[in-house]
Every structure is written in C-alpha cells, then in structure tokens.
C-alpha cells in the first residue's frame, strides 16, 4: 500500500487533476511548439504569449500546493483542509505538499526557460525565478496554513511580505545586477524559513491555537465603549452609510496605509537618476486606483468577507429602497476615496516639495504660466479622486446582481477583451503597416460604440423609472450631473491640447471617447442589479 505522503499528494492530484493535467500538457507541448515555429515568422510574440502562460502555470502550482483555491485570505482559520487534521499522520507528513510543491516549481521553471524563453532570444536566468516562485509558495503556505485570531492579520502580513518580496527583487536587480547565486541563496533562505513556519502553522491549526495579538483585545473595548455612546442616526440613509463605511469604506484607506508603510522608506532615499521623480509620483498616485480596483471586487457585496454574492435576508428585508441602498454604497465609496487620497496627499506633499524633487518637477513645466500649472494640477487631483471613485463604483453592479454567473461572465468578458487588446497591441507593434488600416476603422467604430452606450443607458434609465426604483427627479439629476461631467471633461481636454490640433474630426473623437469613458449604464444599472437580486 502507498505511504501517507503519497496519499497526501494523491489527494491534491485528485482535487486538481484537470488543472494539473493542463499544466503538464503545457510543459510538454510548449517547447515543441516553439521549436516547430520557423524563425522568420518571428518567435518573440510567441514567446511573449507562451512565456506568460508559463508564469500562469507556476502561479497555478502555487495555488494548488498551498490549498489556496479552497479558501480565502481573509478567513481567520487555517486554509489547510480540516479532514487532514484527523488523519493518523504526523504534522511532518501534513507539511509534505510544501516539499512537493517546491520540487514541482523548481523543476518546471528551467523547462520553461530552456524550452520557451531562450529559443526565442531572451537571456532568461535558469534558476532564480523558479526559486523565487518557490519562496512565494513557501510564504503563502506559511501564511495560509497558520490560523490567526484576527481575520485581517493574515492580510496585513501578506501585504508586508509582498512588499518585502518586491523590495528584495528590486534591490537584487538594482544593486547586485541580478547575480544568480546570490538570488538563489536569498530566496532559498526565505523558503526554508517559511517552510518551518508552515510546519508550525499546521501544528497550530491542528491544536486549534491561532496566532493572536492579545494586546488588541485590551485596546479594542476601549474604542468600542465610545462607539456605544453615539446617538441615533438621523435617517435610514445615514444608518446605511454607517454600515457601508464600517464594512467597505475603511478597506481602501487601511490597504493604502499598509502599502504606504512599505513604500515610505523608499521615498526617503535620494532619487537615483535611473528612476525620475515623476515616475515615482505616477506609481504612488496610481496606488489608490489600483487598490480601489482590488477593493471594488467586494464592494457590491453586503460584506466583503462574505462568500458568494447573495444579499443576506436581513439586509433585503430592511425597509430601504434599492436606490437608497446603492446611494449609501456610492457615498461610502466617495468618502473612502476622499480619505485615501487625502492621506496620500498628506504623505506626498512634503516629498513633492523636497528641493531636489521640486527642481526636477519644475523642469517639466518650464515656460508655462503659474496659473495654468496650478489650474492643471487642481484638475488633475480632482480627476484622480474621481477616477478612484469610478474604480469603486462602476463595477458595483456585478456583485449587486447577486448572481455568480454575472461575475463570471463579466470577468470572462473583461479578460478576453484584455487578451484581445494585448494580441492587437503586439500585432500592431510588430506590423506597423496595419496601424493605418485600423485608423480607418475609427470613424465607424466610435459612433457604433456610442450608439450602443446610449441604448444601454436609456434602457437602464427607463427601467429605473418603470420599476419605480428612482424618482424621475433623481434620474434627471443623475443625467444632468453626468452631462456636466462629460462637458467639463471635454472642455478640459480641449483646453489642454494645442490649438493647431483642433479639427472637427479630432474634437468629435475626443467627445466620443469621453462619453465612452465616463460610466452611465454601469452606475444607473446598480439599483437595477440590486432589485434583480432582492426580488428574485
């Protein structure tokens, strides 16, 4: 009979046999595909795509061997399957997937590097990326398998280790020129430590002894007592806003502060000539957008930590109209974004006015009048905040609809659009002659998309009125605000572009683009989606 370690691995194989088969099929066929393609066809685009799939395969292996597919990061409990804990095997045997996973990944990477990347002309390192992914696997196992007493603790630790990982990679590349032996050594050390942590984590999960920060229990009630003394809410909308803020509103700011804690030490360093200041600013300014995008996936749910998208009965039976329910969510998103952007501004302003940074920035706007610079800066900040809000608000309808398939379909649609766009971009970069042909399509494409958008928008507005989800006044107000935003955005763009670029066609294209970019149906559809969810 097979031994216990084999049985452990067999379980993993059984659970993920299709995915693992796909991985194996990729490893077997990708080098062959690369070898078969004639050189003159251009191997680089193939390597781009197949190589990315290879990275996806490695990520998949990380998920499989850390049991990451069956659980979420925000759970307090260990993600290790509980049935394992009652088997008559030692903790050591239970930690076997860590070794098997590490072996699988270390073996897979050279195959991809030698079979796919190198034949296509990339000087890909042979060992360290594999070891780095192994270290990532080790860290996710250690974090995932250890039980925590507070459900956000794992998230915080994950963000910190993620930051540390990125910093390690950056330092290795920048300071040591990606020395293979050094990197393998560093990541192998990380893996060893996390393996030990994972071993003890399994033990803790088995004993039911979560990692706890007990001092929080002493601090927590002190805040809580004050909360109880707060007075009654003035309106149902305020109560709902309070709920949304407590559930979703603080997520983005907390996320941002955690990430900033990793980033601030880097900001204190003097700038290197390799990384200009404006690029750092752009990366930091992009953070709320990115984090809001991550938080947005849960924003439509009643509770971001809830599994599934079903509206809880308790929420569904509160006497709030779907419109107010969504309004509270949108307001919470706005508050959340304002707080996040405020924090970021407070942190970045001193950095911005540091003499060396100010000098490099002022070089950018030489010859432009101060009033225009201030106006543009203000507008950019306003749009930056508005765009972050859009990140949170525009995707809300997906989860609000309460149907898993809506999420799957929209994610699939988004993903395939992204893949198509990537392919198209690659195609265009390798075939410059086809760019003009594409440009010829623009006058047809844009109006068609515009018509589709107007149709979707008017359909949503009509349904809102028909189902009495919103009063005609509110719908009219929303429409007016939307038109105002579109008009001002167009004006802003036209004001910024030099006069000699203005043609009737270019202005029309700008208007079309702006109308397409600013969500209407996705916002107006949110109450509809909620109504679809609430009254099934």
């Amino acid at each position, binding site marked *: 009979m097979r031994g216990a370690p084999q049985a452990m691995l067999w379980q993993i194989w059984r659970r993920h046999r299709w995915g693992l088969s796909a991985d194996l099929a990729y490893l077997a066929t990708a080098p062959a595909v690369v070898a078969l393609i004639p050189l003159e066809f251009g191997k680089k685009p193939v390597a781009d795509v197949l190589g990315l799939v290879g990275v996806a395969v490695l990520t998949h292996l990380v998920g499989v061997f850390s049991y990451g597919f069956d659980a979420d990061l925000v759970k307090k409990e260990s993600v290790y399957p509980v049935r394992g804990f009652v088997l008559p095997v030692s903790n050591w045997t239970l930690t076997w997937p860590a070794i098997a996973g590490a072996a699988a990944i270390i073996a897979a990477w050279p195959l991809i590097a030698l079979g796919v990347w190198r034949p296509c002309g990339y000087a890909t390192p042979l060992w360290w990326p594999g070891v780095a992914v192994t270290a990532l696997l080790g860290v996710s196992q250690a974090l995932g398998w250890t039980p925590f007493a507070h459900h956000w603790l794992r998230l915080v630790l994950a963000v910190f280790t993620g930051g540390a990982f990125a910093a390690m990679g950056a330092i290795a590349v920048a300071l040591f020129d990606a020395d293979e032996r050094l990197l393998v050594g560093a990541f192998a050390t990380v893996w060893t430590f996390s393996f030990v942590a994972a071993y003890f984590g399994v033990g803790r999960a088995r004993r039911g002894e979560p990692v706890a920060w007990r001092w929080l229990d002493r601090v927590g009630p002190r805040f809580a*007592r004050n*909360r109880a003394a707060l007075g009654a*809410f003035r309106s149902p909308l305020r109560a709902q806003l309070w709920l949304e803020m407590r559930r979703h509103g603080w997520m983005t700011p907390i996320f941002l502060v955690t990430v900033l804690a990793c980033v601030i030490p880097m900001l204190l360093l003097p700038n290197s000539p390799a990384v200009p200041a404006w690029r750092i600013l752009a990366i930091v300014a992009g953070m709320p957008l990115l984090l809001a995008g991550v938080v947005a996936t849960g924003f439509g749910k009643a509770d971001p930590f809830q599994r599934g998208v079903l509206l809880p009965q308790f929420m569904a*039976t*509160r*006497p709030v109209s779907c419109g107010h329910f969504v309004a509270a969510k949108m307001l919470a998103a706005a508050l959340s974004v304002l707080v996040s952007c405020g924090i970021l501004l407070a942190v970045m302003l001193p950095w911005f006015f540091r003499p060396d940074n100010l000098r490099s920035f002022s070089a950018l706007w030489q010859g432009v009048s101060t009033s225009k610079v201030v106006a543009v800066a203000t507008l950019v900040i306003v749009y930056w905040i508005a765009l972050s809000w859009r990140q949170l608000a525009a995707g809300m309808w997906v989860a609000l609809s309460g149907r898993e398939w809506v999420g799957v379909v929209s994610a699939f649609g988004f993903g395939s659009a992204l893949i198509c766009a990537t392919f198209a971009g690659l195609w265009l970069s390798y075939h410059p002659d086809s760019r003009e042909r594409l440009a010829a399509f623009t006058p047809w494409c844009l109006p068609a998309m515009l018509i589709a958008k107007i149709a979707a928008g008017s359909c949503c507005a009509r349904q809102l009125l028909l189902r009495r989800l919103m009063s005609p006044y509110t719908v009219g107000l929303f429409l007016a605000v939307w038109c105002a935003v579109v008009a001002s955005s167009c004006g802003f763009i036209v004001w910024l572009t030099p006069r000699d670029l203005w043609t009737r066609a270019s202005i029309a294209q700008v208007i079309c683009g702006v109308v397409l970019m600013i969500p209407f149906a996705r916002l107006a559809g949110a109450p509809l989606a909620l109504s679809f969810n609430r009254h099934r």
Partner: protein
Amino acid sequence: MIAPYDEFNDDVIDIRNVTRRFGTKRALDEVTLAVPRGVVFGLVGANGAGKTTLIRHVLGLLKAQAGTVRVFGRDPVLDPVGVLSRLGYLAEENDLPGWMRVDELIRYTRAFYPGWDDRYAEKLLESFGLAPAAKVKNLSKGQRARAGLVVALAYRPELLVLDEPSSGLDPIVRRDILGAIVRTIADEGRTVLFSSHLLDEVERVSDCVAMLDRGRVVFAGELDQIKQSHHRLTVRFDGGRPSPPDLNGVLRWEPHGGDWMATAQGPLDEFQFAVAAVGGEVVERRSLSLDEIFLAQVGTAYVEQQES
C-alpha cells in the same frame, strides 16, 4: 388606527393564484391564501412543501411568476419600503450581520422604523439576557434568534412574519418566541404569519392554519373548523371485513382489533350514513390533533403518489 387599504379587501396578506417554478420544480402551484387582520396564521407542511417560498413572496424577496401578492394592499416588489417598514421578520437561517455588536445592531435597525420603542427594546434585551457589547457572531444560536426577535419586535410591527422561527432551538428560546407571538397578537389589530413544522406550537397559538403540500394548499381555514371537520372513527362491520370499504372523505383506514379505524374529513353525519349503507356502524369518535391531521393528509397524498 390605520387607514383602510386602497386595494382589494381588508386582508393583511392577499395571495392569489401565485405560481412559482424553480427550474422544472413547481415550488408553488396556484396558491391562493388570505390572512385577515388580527389573527395568528400558521403555515404548516413538510420540508420542501413551499412554506419558505410563500413567505419569501410575502416579503417581496421572490417575484410572483404568475398571480398577485398584496401585503397591506401593496405589492411588496414594487413598494418594498411601504411593506417592509410595517412588517417584522425573523427566519430560521437568521443572517444578522455577525460583525455588529448587539447595541450597534439596535442602533442601526432603529433608524429605519419611526415607531421604534426604545423602552420596549431595552426590556426585551434585558429579559433575554443579551449583553449590548457582545458581537452577534459570538452569540449562541439561541441568543442570535433572540437578538433577531428584538429587532423584529421593537417597533411593534403590524405584521410579524416568522419563518420556522424555532426549529433547531432549545425549548427555552422556543418559549420566548411563542411568547412574542402571543404578546404581539394580544396587542389589538396585529397579525402574525408563521411557518413551523412543530405542529403542537402551531396548534397552541394559531387562529387559522394553512397546510401546504408540494406547492399546493391542501386546506386553509380556522383551526377550530379544521379540527371539527377531521375525525378518527372506529367503525364496526357486522361480522367483520377483510378489507375496508371505499368511502368518500376517508383519508386512511387502519385495522383496529376486529374493527376498522378511519381517519375522515367532512361532516360526521354524512359519514355515518355512508357507513350505515355498507352495513357498518360508527362506535367511537375522537377528534384529531393537528399532528395527526397532518400525517393523515400528507401521508395519504404520498400513498396516492406511489400508486399513480
């Protein structure tokens, strides 16, 4: 006290010909039911009979695929606020937000109901022994049900809807819930709709009862009338009979010594005539508990289904 309803009649809940399918399964089949004001209306039936589906229609959580649902004369789907603000709801799978503390739950919920009675809420919390600082998710199942009861009762709703409120709970919590029903109904003009498969509870507190079986209403009416129209009769035939006769209204025959025991529905005298016609005599009559009526009605249906 309350203005007369603008549509239909004075029934608090008026369900007409409601049909609901989930895939190919008919969860509700042409259900027509009216709940008059001021009664305790018990909804009984086996698991999967459609009780919860019916209640979810009343709450507007399900949209009627055919037929109409009116609560307080309004459509709960078109006017959820108008209906839900006058209604208190507690379900078996009580999904109060676990992250809230009890006092936060109260503070949050009271914002929605102008008629919220702080002193009553306070009294209920105290009598249930609910600590305001406790988190809902750390409460036991019984305490969670009690917390749900507080936020469903504290605004003295005109209609209390309870979906299997006491299944899976200990007897003490069940007492609290029954007590809440009794107290609610004792206030003039309030109505209770509750589903349960604990039939002795239903029999204790209901004025009216409707029995659902596989999406259809088997019977609905006042509990007293239902009980009067069901009998368990001992029938003696001259010289005995190897098999019982086929008589109208008999739900089930069981051999009983040399006699036959019939569970019958309908007027007693008609049945006595019918028995006399086939040479028998009713020697004893006993009324049935709701439990026995339920078994007889649903059990028979089951036998019929097997035969067909």
